């Protein structure tokens, strides 16, 4: 059977959804909703509630923009999985990526949605209800690291164990994925802390994992786009003859 021609438009579209996700996420959360830098876990219920009451519309618009981007986790994740799939005879690592990715989409969406619920009627509910929803949003954002870590490990192992003749990614990309997988682990420590670098607004639990993860999306987009170009060039070359003539003296 003749292989289908490569649809690089679909591949590129999915790859570019990564930066789109990053832009929508940060436009929604930084200038609009004002969620970054995050509120402190030690803030009183009254402070959190009044913050939601005073910025209701801005937070509503911000989280709407943010959740719009969350579906792009699916397209972006697929743009990576399609390449590690090529290097596996029985694509177990690719399946792991896709299953974790399904969680990532739901989790990212619920993060925004829970903040949206907090901003839905902050004038009518008790202050500690608003704070609980705010806390829940930050738990959904940070405490959910395990499926993210497994997703990244599955990509990393897929890159390292790529047995195809033309691996899509250089091997350092695999180790880079392991590194990102490891650096988002401390996010889980947020459950213990209401102050300092391990709280949900802290250096080690928030800033480091967030920075590392979102730059990872940009780096992987670039590597996927490079892989697409390389595959295009490879397919443009004439197929090597099956039985090359040995070169004689």
């Amino acid at each position, binding site marked *: 059977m003749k292989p289908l021609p490569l649809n690089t438009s679909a591949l590129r579209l999915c790859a570019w959804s990564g930066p789109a996700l990053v832009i929508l996420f940060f436009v929604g959360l930084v200038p609009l909703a004002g969620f970054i830098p995050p509120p402190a876990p030690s803030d009183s219920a009254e402070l959190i509630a009044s913050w939601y009451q005073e910025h209701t519309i801005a937070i509503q618009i911000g989280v709407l923009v943010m959740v719009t981007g969350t579906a792009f986790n699916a397209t972006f994740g697929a743009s990576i999985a399609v390449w590690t799939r090529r290097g596996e005879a029985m694509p177990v690592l690719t399946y792991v990526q896709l299953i974790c990715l399904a969680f990532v989409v739901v989790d990212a969406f619920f993060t925004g949605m829970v903040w949206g619920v907090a901003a839905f009627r902050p004038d009518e509910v008790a202050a500690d209800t608003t704070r609980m929803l705010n806390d829940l949003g930050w738990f959904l954002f940070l405490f959910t690291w395990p499926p993210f870590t497994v997703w990244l490990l599955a990509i990393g192992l897929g890159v390292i164990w790529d047995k195809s003749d033309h691996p899509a990614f250089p091997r*350092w990309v695999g*180790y*880079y994925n*392991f590194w990102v997988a490891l*650096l988002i682990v401390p996010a889980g420590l947020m459950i213990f802390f209401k102050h*300092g670098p391990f709280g949900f607004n802290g250096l*080690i639990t928030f800033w480091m994992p967030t920075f590392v993860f979102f730059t990872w999306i940009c780096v992987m987009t670039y590597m996927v786009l490079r892989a697409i170009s390389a595959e295009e060039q490879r397919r443009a070359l004439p197929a090597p003859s099956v039985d090359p003539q040995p070169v004689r003296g």
Partner: protein
Amino acid sequence: MSTTVPPSSGVPGGSVPQDRLRRTRHVPGEVGAWVFILGDLAAFALLFGVWMYYRGMEPRLFADSQAEVHRSFGAINTLLLLTSSLCVVTAVRAVRAQMHRLAQAAIGLALVCAVGFLLDKVLEWTDLVANGHGPTTNNYFLYFFVLTGLHAFHVLIGMGILIALARLSGKPSLSEGQFSFVEGGACFWHMVDLIWVVLFALLYLMH
């Protein structure tokens, strides 16, 4: 190092060009693995910075709390990890020399040291908590438990890698990629050791 050809040897051009020398230099493990190792070191550097920052905020409390920690637990652990690193170096050299039994024995010994490290750690933690110095006591003990906990997590990862190395080093011959993995895994273990040595100095010794 001393591969420069003496000018009297009659070789045209006299000495080996610098770039040729550089090319023969050997990076242990895969270059890509260093992305992970150096990246992880960078993350720990950040954690050391956090420690120094909070120590600077409460120097008296940190000094008084440090006096409550038994240095011998930390010193024993330093000895154990340094010994394990020596074993791993021996193992890599043994793999290179095709001495598979020696390599496996050395990695086995390194693993015994690692288990000893974790046992010592658990004893130390339970002793501290039993004496009323839990993670919630003050900032010193908070960061003490977080930093030693994150490091112990790395020891666990490292033990997984050492088990993989032990299996690989039993093979009659290794491919280039497998040998690279042995070297890279050994480097990871040395990194775990290095981080501990810095932690030991910061948490137990620094006045």
